[in-house]
């Protein structure tokens, strides 16, 4: 079970949150003017790393805010919780995996 520290509500159980998938994916500004390929890349392609994953969670049964979480997909360790809109915090992936 994960424990996620909501910046507003404090440490809470995973069951209070819903998972929103990979974060930092930017929607094309003018979808009608890009190729089918670029649109499908935006919609479907994912990093899906074994290691640090930058992902969104919503504190659904709490304050209902969306937050960003940097989490290791192998150890499940949470490295950082940071606001939506902030840039990715950088981790050395190898170091993170140790």
């Amino acid at each position: 079970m994960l424990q996620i520290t909501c910046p507003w509500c404090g440490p809470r159980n995973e069951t209070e949150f819903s998972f929103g998938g990979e974060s930092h994916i930017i929607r094309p500004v003018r979808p009608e003017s890009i190729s089918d390929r670029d649109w499908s890349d935006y919609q479907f392609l994912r990093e899906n790393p074994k290691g640090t994953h930058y992902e969104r969670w919503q504190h659904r049964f709490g304050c209902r805010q969306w937050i960003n979480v940097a989490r290791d997909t192998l150890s499940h360790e949470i490295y950082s919780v940071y606001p939506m809109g902030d840039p990715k915090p950088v981790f050395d992936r190898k170091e993170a995996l140790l």
Partner: protein
Amino acid sequence: MSHYSFFNLAKKALGGHKNWAPAWRRATPQKHYDVVIIGGGGHGLATAYYLATKYGVGNVAVLEKGWVGGGNTGRNTQVVRSNYFYPESAAFYDHSLKLYESLSRELNFNLMLSQRGHLSLAHSEHEMEIMRRNVNAISLNGIDARELSPAEIKKRVPLINLNARYPVLGGFVQPRGGIARHDAVAWGLARGAYNAGVDIIENCALTGFDISGGRVTGVQTSKGAISAGSVGVAVAGHSSEVARMADLKLPITSMSLQAMVTEPIKPVLDTAVISPTIHMYVSQSDRGEIVLGGGADVYNSYAQRGGMRTIEDNVAALLELFPRFSRLKLMRQWAGVVDISPDTSPILGKTPIDNLYINCGWGTGGFKAIPAGGDTMAYTIAHKTVHPLINAFDLQRFERGALIDESAASGVAH
């Protein structure tokens, strides 16, 4: 190799079972193979098996990072069925079930296919409507499916609680569905491939591809470089990591899917039961354990374990439908890393790199697909032409918007 037969069993028994030949021998990699398959799960082994036995490509190696069947193929809940909604899926999965029906004999290895029926439940009027639509679609696809009333369900599954929190209003059965022994599928195919001359190389991880001019020419592994005419990748949950080695990005998300078994009891459940609404499915193994599972843990994961939240959900759902199982103890719980695609249908066939083929996206339901996945991939690699049954399952379908959305159509996979 030793042929498996009653006569041989009796003969070897006299010698204290000491002189059975190994089912397959450890191979050390050669410098070159016509085809190198990455991943010694069911799909990789079946591809190698059919390449060597059906499509005349004998110089084949299977590279497995760990041990044969140590991935999802040895971790699943063994459900086989072909009651899919879309014609493309129905044709593919029924081809698979038909191959399973004769594979034990062909492999001289008992896969313990038990066509005990696969029963799906419906818990609301809306679900009943969707279910009837499904049954009609499945029947139109030429596959066996029949609606059951609550009374018929109770007769078939006496322990079921029809008046659960979500009452059972009806269901449908695919009589040819059921279960097969998962380890036997891996071992039988490995033995069959080995006997046809395939090198099965365990403890050998792919670490990179040799690609020049948009064409794959070989692989880098933990046991050195191997040159290859073609390379087929069937690594399930590790597909994104392996594709990254070839600078490809996939529409795949890796998640933990759990399963668990209770202590063994006498036979009480002789069919496979699934409830899409409460997201739980259950069957009884030949050893007597009650085998249950449900949905994947909700976040990206490469950890072969899974969390308490899902265990609780699965058990609560099981006990709602089968209150009497509350007396049983859970014995074991485990998880596999499943490769979920956006439309929960597999991705099969060519990649943008010449001679590099991919087989992934099985998510929670690729065990039943192993014979067909292997057959169609072997055909595709041998002929360099995509097998007609998997034309619609190509990687490019996302660009065309031609999704085969089985999860939307039928609720859940497995």
